[in-house]
């Protein structure tokens, strides 16, 4: 009696919502396939090798940043500051070369160090002062954006730029740094981030603990899991990956434009939320995030090919995010 009751309770709704469940699990993959079909029909060059490579390259920065968001989501946190952290890292890396003629390692490490400082501030305010994560990172998003702007004095940093005293900047960006943003390295870095975090979340004790905290923080605390430590780690990792994203961006464009990282926030959030549903995992996961980023990348690339103007792109991306959120929360309601 006891056994049969839970089993029926489990299997009944499944039958009823089979269609929804199927689309929930495989909808993202199907959409990607359908999109590829549609875009190819409209323009056969869409599936050519170099265009596919192009798409992969274009999503790598989004994916890297989204991987960081995925980690913060796994403890049921949320980090809105990733876009500005990417901007800051971008600015610091380029300025190290151009303004201060430093080597590659110094540029990368100073960018990472600045990002980790942001991560520390975020996590202390969230864990100790107990400010809701979304609000706090909204505030730090603006603070960091402001710091990045102040640091660059509101100007674009590039090689041979004119300095305030009228001379030209003499620093050069190293050849090694330039490689980071080029195929294949940019794709390798993205793949490494996805695989690393996938393994962390699914195959290690720490990943299990993070999901447990995300599922029920109080139960996790009463099970003796050091909840605060893991939340701090999640925000540090989130900032770390945002910074990697910024560094890769710096290498790809070889300049530090104003707020260069900001647009990546929305794409990354969308990718992470689309990722919830991939193969029905129902929680933030690295592989799903990659699939989400691919979906957005294909949409963007295909729409550009179909001559949709760049300024209309946000409508499409925002709609995709809303749809992914609808899917996630409708599923939870059930």
């Amino acid at each position: 009696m006891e056994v049969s009751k839970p089993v029926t309770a489990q299997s009944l709704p499944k039958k009823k919502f089979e269609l929804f469940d199927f689309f929930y699990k495989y909808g993202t993959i199907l959409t990607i396939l359908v999109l590829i079909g549609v875009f190819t029909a409209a323009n056969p060059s869409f599936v050519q090798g170099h265009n596919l490579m192009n798409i992969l390259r274009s999503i790598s920065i989004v994916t890297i940043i989204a991987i960081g968001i995925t980690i913060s989501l796994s403890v049921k946190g949320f980090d809105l500051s990733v876009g500005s952290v990417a901007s800051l890292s971008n600015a610091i890396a380029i300025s190290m070369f151009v303004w201060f003629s430093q080597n590659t390692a110094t540029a990368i490490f100073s960018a990472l160090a600045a990002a980790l400082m942001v991560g520390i501030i975020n996590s202390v305010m969230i864990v100790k002062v107990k400010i809701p994560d979304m609000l706090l990172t909204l505030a730090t998003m603006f603070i960091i954006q402001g710091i990045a702007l102040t640091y660059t004095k509101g100007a674009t940093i590039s090689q041979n730029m004119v300095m305030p005293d009228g001379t030209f900047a003499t620093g050069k960006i190293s050849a090694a740094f330039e490689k980071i943003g080029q195929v294949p390295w940019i794709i390798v870095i993205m793949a490494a981030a996805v695989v690393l975090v996938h393994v962390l979340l699914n195959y290690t004790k720490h990943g299990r603990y993070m999901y447990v905290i995300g599922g029920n923080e109080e139960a996790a605390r009463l099970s003796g899991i050091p909840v605060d430590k893991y939340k701090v780690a999640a925000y540090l990792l989130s900032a770390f990956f945002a910074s990697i994203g910024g560094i890769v961006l710096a290498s790809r464009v070889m300049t530090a434009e104003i707020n260069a990282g900001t647009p990546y926030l929305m794409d990354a959030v969308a990718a992470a939320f689309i990722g919830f549903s991939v193969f029905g995992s129902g929680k933030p996961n690295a592989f799903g995030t990659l699939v989400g980023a691919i979906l957005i990348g294909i949409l963007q690339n295909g729409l550009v090919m179909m001559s949709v103007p760049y300024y209309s792109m946000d409508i499409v991306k925002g709609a995709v995010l809303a749809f992914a959120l609808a899917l996630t929360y409708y599923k939870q309601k059930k």
Partner: protein
Amino acid sequence: MALLEMKDISIEFPGVKALNHVSFASETGRVHALIGANGAGKSTLMKVLSGAYSHYTGEIHLDGRKAVITSPRDALEEGIQIVHQEVDTALIPYLTVGENILLHDLVNEMGRKQLVGWKPLHKKATRILEEMNISVSSKMLVSELTLAQKQMVLIARAVSAQCRFLILDEPTAPLSHSETNELFRIVRNLKAQHVGIIFISHRLPEIFEICDDITVMRNGELVIKENISETSIHRVIEQMLGKSLDEQFPFLNGKVGEIVLEVKGLSDAEKIKDLNLTVRAGEIIGIAGLVGAGKTELCKTLFGCTKITAGDVFLNGRKLKLKNPHQAVRQGMALVPEERRKEGILVEESVAANLTAANLGQFTKVFSFLDRRAEKQKAVEIIQTLGIKTPSEKTKVQNLSGGNQQKIAIGKWLIADADVYIFDEPTKGVDVGAKKDIFELISALAKRGKAIVYASSEFPEILGITNRLYVLYDGRAVKELETSAATEEELLFYSTGGR
């Protein structure tokens, strides 16, 4: 004088007959106590009266006229108001006292008016507060009030509307002594204004202080209705207990070792005051107390969840300084919390993930990689030893019954292997069969030399399973008893504030 009669009320929930032909009567201008052990049906009866259910059978009469009450709105229209124990759920914290008192007017009586008249509103609210002799300003924010003041605001709201009967559901449980006196002054005041008050409480001395009549319920039935002046605390306790249920408790062999846990003069910021207790290896200690006595607070404080403001806790002779539960677990303590779904289990995770959550380190290889085979093996082993009824170790815990969920909440600490096990109401919402399994599990732990703290308001269970017990009343351990020498009557006497 109006008369309220509930005739032949029965109500069933899936699998439970919560009320069985209960006939209850009360009058305006009197304070009527409704009392019974946990699960006796007093809250259910009052929910019927206040319109929370529509599927009951029987009739409700007011002044001899039949009243149809199937929704909270019906009850309000008949002048029946209820103030629940959780006052915060009924108040809006960032509105003023006045707005909260007159919330009903603001929501329903505005008609086509679009603007709120602040002056008349506060004037009306102030008048109500003055009439009731409550010294709270109408312009204060509710979020700034104490719990007792919030309760009074709710009472003021109830009285401001048409109110013939006011139900107070355990109003004194969270109040201090002086706050209780203040509440009683207001209750007497209302009584003089011919409001009928139905007073649910666990505290017998209070009932004998304030009430005129008393109705005792047990197992969904009405046992007696008497005039308070013609009865005694002992008679009421007798009626509440009836004959006790025969439960199968495992036999304790009583091999008790050294002191494992010692608590000296423990206080926390809110509830616990100057509490002493000791637990020896192989001993099961009962913490007996009614709802609100501070059992959960004690368990959580011992486990490092809340800060200790005074006193010391010693584990195996070493002084403990716990900052959080993580440290408690590392020191060898385990807690099975009361709110199972909220605190004890991870409903969306699998049985296996739940069982290993407290000691996942045992199932890892190099670099903290999970050893899923070992995890599965151990999970299956625990599922078998505890008789957890689940299709597989991968099933999500939310699909299991309450008893099986509780076994999982306990099972995770068997893997962690602690020295001290704290159980907070471990049989709450658990069916009889699983209850017996849980008792056997706990006594098996004691036989293995573990020190066990068993907190519960189910006195027959405490008497059945413990070696020694402490009675908790208002955050203090008011009495220590050898279980073999204690009776249920005694427990009820001390836990309701008797001395």
